[in-house]
């Protein structure tokens, strides 16, 4: 089975992320201000197509992986499914017991997909490491991890600036800036590790 072009995969995922953020920021504020049901529906579902594209690209990547990579994907997806299922059922019970407000419940639902992707990535990285690979697959086939984290930090800072300019003291700004800082620290860490790895002779 042919291997996917990993660098192209990274670029496509990043492009989809940018489209998602731009669509979300430009369309979402209209959802609560409009009373027209069709416009509301269109605005509410506008961020979904970039996410579907991400799922499509991920599915292609898994299909084009070799047998060991498919095994690590399966482990990652299995762990992510378990974690997200537990979080969902706990949130469901809390909401049914009216310990969570409806607003909080909808926020939890929006975070299910990112949680799935994060847990899947971490679990898959761990599984790859158990088989002797790199947790973040820094090799010739892929964009280095530090570049991916730097890109993520850029997107987060852009998002934070947008939210800040739009709604001033919104508490979401602090969360997004904290996410950006974590990504910047990760980018510096992986950049240092990348430079060290470049100096080592190939196996």
């Amino acid at each position, binding site marked *: *089975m*042919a*291997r996917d072009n990993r660098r192209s995969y990274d670029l496509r995922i990043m492009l989809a992320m940018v489209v998602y953020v731009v669509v979300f920021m430009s369309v979402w504020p209209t959802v609560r201000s409009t009373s027209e049901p069709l416009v509301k529906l269109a605005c509410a579902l506008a961020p979904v197509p970039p996410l579907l594209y991400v799922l499509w690209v991920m599915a292609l990547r898994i299909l084009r*992986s*070799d*047998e*060991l*990579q498919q095994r690590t994907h399966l482990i990652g997806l299995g762990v992510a499914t378990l974690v997200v299922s537990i979080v969902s059922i706990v949130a469901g019970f809390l909401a049914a017991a009216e310990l969570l407000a409806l607003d909080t419940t909808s926020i939890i639902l929006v975070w299910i997909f990112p949680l799935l992707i994060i847990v899947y990535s971490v679990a898959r990285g761990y599984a*790859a490491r*158990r*088989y*002797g*690979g*790199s947790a973040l*697959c820094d*090799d*010739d*086939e892929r964009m280095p991890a530090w570049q991916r984290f730097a890109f993520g930090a850029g997107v987060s800072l852009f998002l934070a600036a947008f939210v800040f300019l739009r709604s001033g003291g919104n508490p979401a700004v602090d969360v997004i800036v904290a996410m950006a800082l974590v990504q910047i620290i990760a980018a510096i860490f992986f950049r240092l590790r990348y430079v060290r790895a470049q100096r080592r002779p*190939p*196996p």
Partner: protein
Amino acid sequence: MNNHLRRLRELRSWSQGDLAEQLEVSRQTINAIETGKYDPSLPLAFRIAKLFRQPIEAIFEPGKE
């Protein structure tokens, strides 16, 4: 399961990347097989045997039970 993949590869002066390309798998998979962390599927084992023109049992042998 033990294997002689690294020795066979080095006899031909191939890098892990060269072998991975010929077998259409990732370099990480070759590394995992060579270090005994992963046992390949039967189809991949046959591809390896065909590439090195050796019977499977000459490349792979059962490890300690």
